[in-house]
């Protein structure tokens, strides 16, 4: 006597039951008729939300600066501005390469897209390496996140941003996997591109605020 569990529709699917008759009831949406959302609408909840987190960091940082503008100025001037500038250029270049990759992918130019992505990935790694070198230099000169409020925000802002860069590198690498399999542009591909541009955009603000505005 065998126990034929495969016929038991009450078992969940992963225990051999039948696939559930599941489908989300879609509410009818009004057609906008114009414009194409990059990636998908839900992505922008994340993108705008993450940008707002950094926005909140920026607001509080500048607010804290009001209590000690001279201290902020002295500390900010200690930063390696040229490294920051190179990093800005590197990320802007990487964004350009991501745009190039996306358009190549759309047109079926898989090899060209892959090359662009390799370039963008390399830029991301260069950014990370420069940032680590910068951290070592700053820490080596005795400055820690606890030194003063400026350095707290310097380390937290650039640190959380660096985390975003590293995640972006992983996303771009996965995009290269999509290219290798010869698949067309997906929501994921466009979403990764938008994410990378967000990483670039956030750095541009961080550089301007921390390295330039605070130091003036």
């Amino acid at each position: 006597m065998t126990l034929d569990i495969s016929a038991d529709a009450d078992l969940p699917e992963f225990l051999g039951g039948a696939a559930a008759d599941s489908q989300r009831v879609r509410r009818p949406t009004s057609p906008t008729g114009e414009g194409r959302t990059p990636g998908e609408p839900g992505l922008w909840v994340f993108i705008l939300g993450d940008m707002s987190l950094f926005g909140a960091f920026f607001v509080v940082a500048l607010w804290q600066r009001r209590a000690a503008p001279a201290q902020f100025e002295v500390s900010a001037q200690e930063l390696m501005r040229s490294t920051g500038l190179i990093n800005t250029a590197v990320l802007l270049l990487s964004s350009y390469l991501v745009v190039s990759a996306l358009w190549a992918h759309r047109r079926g130019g898989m090899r060209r897209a892959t090359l662009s992505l390799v370039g963008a990935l390399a830029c991301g790694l260069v950014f990370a390496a420069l940032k680590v070198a910068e951290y070592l230099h700053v820490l080596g000169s005795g400055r820690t996140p606890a030194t003063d409020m400026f350095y707290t925000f310097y380390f937290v802002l650039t640190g959380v941003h660096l985390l975003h860069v590293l995640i972006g590198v992983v996303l771009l690498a996965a995009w290269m996997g999509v290219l290798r399999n010869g698949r067309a542009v997906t929501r994921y591909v466009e979403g990764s591109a938008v994410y990378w541009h967000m990483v670039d955009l956030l750095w541009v603000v961080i550089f301007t605020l921390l390295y330039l505005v605070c130091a003036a």
Partner: protein
Amino acid sequence: MTRGIPVRATAVWMLLMAATALTWWLGADHGADLGGGRTWVALAIPVVFLKVYLIGSEFMEVRTAPRALRLVFGAWVMVLTAVLTTIYLL
């Protein structure tokens, strides 16, 4: 569009690189030379958010997105510019 990437995107990228160089020049004490140091520095904030808007509009393709997203993105940029500039100048 034989080369794949739109000319517009390339132009925007070059503009961004130029704007970055300009901001750095302004920040590297040259702004103080022009007098009214804090005002010039405060200008850096709207300039950087203009760059943010360009990156979003051209690279993220918000420009060709539905109006709702364009409005939200633009509003986000404007609100943050206003708040940060105000706090800096306070």
